[in-house]
């Protein structure tokens, strides 16, 4: 029998190493939490089943854009121009995908930390409660922008490539600014709304149902009150589903769905909703006991 290897071979015990390098502080803590929240929402570094819903919903949001661009590329330009969709009206094709995406991803990002005790571990790190909420809301807004900003941008790029886009640079730049403003408005709206619902429960399913019912339910109730009972059209400011898309139409300068309502008060009403949601979320998190 022979042995191989050096005679002095041994198992190395590295023991416990002290860390003497830099400690990056609260800013790095927020960045790490932001990245981890993005990954969680999109199913990255997770099993395949966690990627299914984000991918499906993203396909639902991007597919119409791909189809419109394809049609523009394949049919003659004069016919294709009639088949083009306005950038603001594109949201009409993806509202269901947006609400579904919000209901599927935001509760996973927000509720899981409280249910699994991670919130306590985060707050035992250099993060403050406000820092935690800032990182989380930035992550949620970024994730939602994937479906509120990405598809119109794809549409713009596609149309430009098949020479059906705006005249560059002036019209193109104005359009991009409007596109970013509209995409971020919808993303911020649903960030505030979804985080407010999620702060009321640590159960993901309940939060998902609350988001879907809250938005769609408010639209049904408001419609019944305004269109059916002929009450004040200002009640439409309580339509949590249609309000952000009405703002989108105004940002793009398209005909309003709610012509009775002036633009500035409508924006202020939306801002009031967002501020109220932010106050609710912050107050709730400030009061949470996390060391149990």
């Amino acid at each position, binding site marked *: 029998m022979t042995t191989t290897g050096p005679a002095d071979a041994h198992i190395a015990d590295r023991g416990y190493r002290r860390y003497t390098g830099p400690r990056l502080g609260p800013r790095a803590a927020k960045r790490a939490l932001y990245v981890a929240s993005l990954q969680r929402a999109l199913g990255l570094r*997770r099993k395949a089943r966690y990627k299914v819903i984000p991918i499906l919903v993203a396909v639902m949001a991007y597919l119409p854009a791909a189809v419109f661009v394809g049609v523009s590329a394949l049919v003659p330009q004069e016919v294709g121009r009639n088949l083009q969709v306005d950038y603001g009206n594109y949201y009409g094709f993806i509202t269901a995908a947006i609400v579904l995406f919000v209901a599927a991803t935001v509760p996973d990002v927000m509720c899981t930390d409280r249910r699994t005790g991670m919130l306590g571990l985060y707050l*035992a790190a250099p993060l403050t409660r406000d820092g935690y909420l800032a990182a989380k809301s930035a992550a949620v807004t970024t994730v939602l922008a994937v479906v509120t900003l990405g598809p119109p941008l794809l549409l713009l790029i596609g149309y430009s490539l098949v020479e059906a886009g705006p005249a560059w640079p002036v019209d193109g730049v104005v359009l991009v600014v409007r596109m970013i403003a509209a995409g971020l408005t919808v993303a911020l709206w649903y960030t505030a709304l979804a985080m407010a619902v999620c702060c009321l429960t640590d159960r993901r399913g309940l939060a998902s149902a609350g988001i879907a019912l809250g938005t769609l339910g408010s639209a049904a109730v408001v419609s019944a009150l305004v269109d059916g009972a002929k009450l004040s059209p200002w009640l439409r400011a309580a339509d949590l589903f249609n309000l952000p898309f009405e703002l989108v139409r105004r940002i793009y300068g398209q005909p309003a769905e709610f012509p009775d309502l002036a633009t500035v008060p409508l924006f202020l009403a939306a801002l009031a909703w967002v501020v109220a949601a932010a106050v609710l979320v912050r107050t709730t998190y400030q009061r949470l006991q996390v*060391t149990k």
Partner: protein
Amino acid sequence: MDAVVEARGVVKRYGATTALSGATVTIGGGVTGLLGSNGAGKTTLLGMLLGLHRPDSGELRVLGLDPSKAGPEVRARVGYAPEHHELPPDMSAYDLVRHLAEVHGLPHREAVDRASDVLWLVGLGEERLRPVGTMSTGQRQRVKLAAALGHDPLLLLLDEPTDGLDPTQRDAMLALIKRVGHEFGIDIVLSSHLLDEVERICDQVVILAGGVVAAAGPLEELRGSGTGLVVEVDGGAEHLAAALHTRGLPVSLVGPRRVEVGPIDGDDGPVYDIVRDVVAEVGVPLRNLRARRASLEDVFLGLDHSGDGLGSNPEPAAAAAGTATSAGPAR
């Protein structure tokens, strides 16, 4: 030894409930047991050490900093393992420890290296890629310890680290904590309501009762300097007890092989001589002769847990509102 934690008159109220009503203590290095019954204020105090709750009054310093003003700086150098066992079930132990090390400010590369290292140190090297949700309670306790160690803290706060463990797992966890405290040189404050585990691994103890520090100090001091003698013999304990009684000593027979002598006022030196002579006269085989000290349980039970003051056991109570350091005397 520098104080790791200093509290002076710390008061914390939640509405009508007073969680801490003037806690005063200085905790030095080493492994410190934070003892108290449920509701005594242990978890509240740990939360305040992390800067998660602001004291209503009083002063608190952790590693020389005020956690209510410099919370992020304190928390960057403190590791915390909470009492609960819930952790993200779909996350691997490695991902969890790495992520928390990054959140504590370590660069990504360093967090990756240390996550593996600390998981090996706590005995989960082979299991590090398993989702936490598939792990036993004992393994989760180890994951929590690894997560608290990942960023190389100066101070570890462990809230009931043996909760939910069977006796074998508990022994292993206590050995691990002892190793962290004594070999790795990390100071530890360990909250527990189990006296024997604190007695086994802690250098000093802080006992909370009714929201105040009822006693604090090194274990030896809390147990007192001796309240008499313990005599252990191989049979014939009843004859020995009778003979000692005839010499005028306060004696109690504790089982067939053990006699306790005391309490003794003043110097107990002559009593040792008397006991030695009586043992020789009676002719019983002597196994052990030592000073009788209070167990931690005696100390704990001797305290007044209402928070109004101290209990009937005068010796351990002398360390109340004092200094829990392994070097300094109790106040």
